[in-house]
């Protein structure tokens, strides 16, 4: 056991950030305008393609029977459809159902990526802020374009909510503009930080198990504690995977409501 403690004291460093490294599986570099553009096929791209394939396969195979009284797989597919369609009708109203494919695709893609990231030796696509920020930016751009297309300049009524006295407008309008502009950042940061923090915690507790088990028989008994925490954290991460996908979808739906009915 003393040898084990000596090992720990020598400072074999724990590097939980290593799991987030992007590894190019098929390096592709294209010279363009004097620079070398890197469009390699990375582990992130592989997981994204896997998420899309898993989703398409599950939905088509589950609905292939198309029985009136659904079996188990068809139930899951129908429940996911109804879950999102009810959510859109509650938040964005019936005219929000025009954008159901967009919101459903967001929900299912994020859910599949999160769930695939929980498998051993896998990679969490959403743990890179550029991915989540790109998706959030796409949502906010859609909101702005839809808002201006439907209401023209009346979309700007969003920043002057009804019921505010005229002598407060000088304060309210900048606050509303800032809180609108922060939406893509908060939307992307929420998903990114949840995925990053979750997987970091899983890695750190797993390294505790290994570190303690290296301390001899007493250490192996002691390693049961971080092992139990790892199991509990994995369950929590499963919940967070569903929750964060749902939160992204419901917030996109709420922002869409602002585009469809500006002025609260």
């Amino acid at each position, binding site marked *: 056991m003393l040898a084990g403690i000596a090992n720990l004291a020598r400072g074999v460093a724990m590097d939980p*950030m290593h799991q987030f490294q992007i590894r190019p599986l098929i390096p592709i570099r294209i010279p363009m305008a004097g620079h070398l553009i890197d469009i390699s096929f990375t582990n992130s791209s592989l997981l994204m393609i896997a998420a899309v394939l898993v989703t398409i396969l599950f939905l088509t195979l589950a609905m292939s029977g198309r029985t009136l009284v659904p079996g188990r797989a068809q139930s899951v597919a129908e429940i996911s459809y109804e879950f999102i369609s009810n959510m859109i009708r509650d*938040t964005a109203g019936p005219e929000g159902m025009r954008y159901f494919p967009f919101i459903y695709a967001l929900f299912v893609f994020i859910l599949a990526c999160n769930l695939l990231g929980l498998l051993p030796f896998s990679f969490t696509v959403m743990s890179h802020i550029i991915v989540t920020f790109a998706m959030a930016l796409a949502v906010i751009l859609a909101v702005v374009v839809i808002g201006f297309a439907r209401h023209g300049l009346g979309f700007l009524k969003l920043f002057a909510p009804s019921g505010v006295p005229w002598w407060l407008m000088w304060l309210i309008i900048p606050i509303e503009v800032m809180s609108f502009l922060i939406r893509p950042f*908060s939307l992307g*940061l*929420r998903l990114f*930080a949840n995925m990053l923090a979750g997987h970091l915690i899983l890695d750190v507790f797993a390294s505790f198990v290994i570190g303690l088990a290296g301390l001899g028989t007493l250490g192996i008994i002691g390693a049961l504690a971080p092992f139990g925490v790892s199991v509990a954290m994995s369950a929590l991460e499963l919940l967070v995977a569903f929750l964060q996908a*749902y*939160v992204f979808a*419901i917030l996109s739906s709420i922002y869409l409501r602002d585009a469809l009915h500006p002025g609260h």
Partner: protein
Amino acid sequence: MDVQAATVLAKYLGAGMACLAMAGAAIGIGIIFGNYLQAAIRNPAAAQQQFGNLIFGFAVTEVFGIVGIVVAFLLLFAL
């Protein structure tokens, strides 16, 4: 103490201090869910309708706790 060592010391201290932000976020999340439970026990029929608002409120409050821990992780591992 040289600048390198002082920087590392300051980073670890800063990471610890950044974790205090989670206290506020935790209290806020507790308040939201507590209010939802209180109201749901008084009016169980309307509780399911407000579930969407509950999750939305939880999400926007959690952001601030997450921002705190991201600052801590940035200080520890990326800066």
